[in-house]
């Protein structure tokens, strides 16, 4: 474990984190999919997990929900008032899902059950998490559908998922995720299957709803620009390791880790004509360096990088809390 997470919170406005994840390691067979991931989420905060495929973004969210199959999980995930999510008996976990934490999945079309109406899927969740009667659940469902911007909420209650557009399906997913008033929402690439104009609608909806409820939200995103627009803080992952984290502006505009800088330089903004393509690809798990996993592609790599994993260290001496800017690199920018 690195020293960082045990430091007291020093930033003035940083509240006690609602979630503290320490040393999350996930093994699948011989592969270490996540390698000692530590991060904290402040109350009411939105956090983006960014990185490329295979970085482990979705694995973190799925591990927190305890929905990871066939994998060995180590580490602690302390959810305020609930204990260590990774160690709770399944019986307790079932009660927490939907009421303390819930997940919005990437592809609403396949996450919704095709054989039940969307109204039924929502009322089932409402009755289970809030213990409502049938009639109360129905009234509450119509209210929720209205709040997520579904036109004709009464009529849409009896629609099957396939009768709705992708954007509408995602709105239904958001309503179901919010049904039990969770204080932690995990949104796994909630808009990657949608058109850009619909993407803006859904992201705004999720942000407005979490803010209105004072909930915290972890977004899994691959789009850095979207992350900067929607989240207070960003955690950058590479091949299962956290390489940099902190307030969005500091991470993206004062990046210390070479990978963060590279990732940002690959984002094509409208009008940009310069693009330097990085060399190589993420090494397969069988050839992963034991130290910094980015060492094989890093333009600033030193001899020690491949053999010795750099710990997360504060980017500034006067900001050393778990929510402040941190990076893991032996030869930072």
């Amino acid at each position, binding site marked *: 474990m690195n020293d960082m997470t045990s430091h007291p919170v020093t930033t003035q406005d940083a509240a006690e984190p609602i979630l503290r994840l320490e040393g999350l390691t996930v093994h699948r067979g011989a592969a270490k999919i996540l390698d000692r991931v530590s991060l904290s989420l402040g109350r009411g905060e939105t956090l983006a997990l960014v990185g*490329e495929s295979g970085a482990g973004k979705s694995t973190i969210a799925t591990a927190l929900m305890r929905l990871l199959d066939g994998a060995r999980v180590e580490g602690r995930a302390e959810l305020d008032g609930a204990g260590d999510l990774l160690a709770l008996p399944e019986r307790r976990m079932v009660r927490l899902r939907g009421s303390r934490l819930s997940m919005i999945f990437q592809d609403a079309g396949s996450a919704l059950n095709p054989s039940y109406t969307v109204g039924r899927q929502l009322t089932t969740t409402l009755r289970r998490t809030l213990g409502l009667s049938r009639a109360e659940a129905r009234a509450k469902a119509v209210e929720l559908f209205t709040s997520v911007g579904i036109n004709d909420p009464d009529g849409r209650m009896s629609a099957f998922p396939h009768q709705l557009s992708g954007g509408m399906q995602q709105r239904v997913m958001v309503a179901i995720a919010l049904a039990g008033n969770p204080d932690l929402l995990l949104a796994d690439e909630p808009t990657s299957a949608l058109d850009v104009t619909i993407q*803006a609608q859904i992201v705004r909806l999720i942000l407005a709803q979490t803010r209105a409820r004072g909930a915290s939200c972890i977004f899994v995103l691959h789009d850095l620009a979207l992350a900067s*627009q929607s989240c207070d803080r960003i955690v950058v992952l590479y091949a299962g390791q956290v390489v940099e984290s902190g307030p969005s502006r500091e991470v993206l505009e004062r990046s210390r880790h070479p990978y963060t800088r590279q990732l940002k330089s690959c984002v094509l*903004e*409208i009008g940009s004509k310069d693009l330097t393509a990085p060399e190589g*690809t993420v090494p397969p798990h069988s050839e992963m360096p034991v130290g910094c996993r980015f060492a094989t592609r890093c333009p600033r790599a030193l001899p020690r990088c491949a053999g010795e994993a750099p710990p997360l260290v504060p980017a500034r001496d006067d900001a050393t809390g778990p929510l402040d800017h941190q990076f893991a690199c032996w030869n930072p920018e």
Partner: protein
Amino acid sequence: MTMAQIQSAPTETRHAPAPAVFELIEVEQVFAVPKPGRGLLSRDTVGLRALDGVRLTVRQGASIALVGESGSGKSTLLRVLLGLDAPSGGRALYRGKPIREARAHGTAFARDVAMVYQDARGSLDPRMTVGQLIAEPLRHFGIVPKSGEAARVAELIDRVGLPRDAANRYPSGLSGGQVRRVAIARALASEPSVLVADEAVSGLDVSTQAQLLTLLQGLQRDMGLTLVFITHDLGVASYLCEEIAIMYLGRIVETGPTDAVLEAPAHPYSAALRAAAPQFFEPIPEPLPGEIPSPLDLPKGCRFSSRCPAARDDCRLRDPQLGALDAGRAVACLHPLTSKGAQTPEIR
């Protein structure tokens, strides 16, 4: 004024207009689809206008991005361009001849117009090695004698930046980015002058996408390819393509030089697309209300009027056609937005 005239307006970069490779004139594509709500045994159909009055000129050496959301007709337009479907109305020409005719006679069209499919992995036979996959078009079009085949395959593998030993590998052993490179190598094998690519870089990680985009740009520049690039990503369009055509519900609503169009969109839909594209630290803009309407139930007048923040009364009565704006630009809007904002209609 026709698109050809519009685009022949002199620009700084082009001395004389290059000959047109593709010309689409008032192209319509109507599909018969089951009538909504018809009885179980009924055969009632209604016409779905997937393309409605499309005008587009693609000149030799041009790079043009076709941009639009799902349901805008990009893929239908692509099928017309490739001669896979005959348009149900209007004329679709390839070097002055109807595309379908050009395609039916000989292999010249198929050799000259190459395609990179969206689902690159699905477009490759999983039982063939990369070497065999690339040799297939070489042999089909008789590009090189049998003795020179291996050398040409190696050359192509090199050109698209695949490792040398890739020739003996199968598609299943390649990453998503590598599979796209194989698809590009296959497309280049017939020595085409036109490359049509459907979402060739979508669904990839940004670093892989950057690698492919630099490759495509290099190919376009070095080989003088004419590039028709379908994408939903305005950043990709602005990096790779000099021209852009923005589609909405089966019609091109705005065309012109990419930089000029994205700098100051004239059509409110282009402006909305531009605003919705993620940009670092900009607040997420107020999105367009609602979703793309059903093509079976188009709004009266302008098809964008039901979502347009600047719609006026006449927009719901008259259907605007693509008309010249300035400097090679054209827009289908009764009240185009201007860069100065002087004529910008009040937003209600």
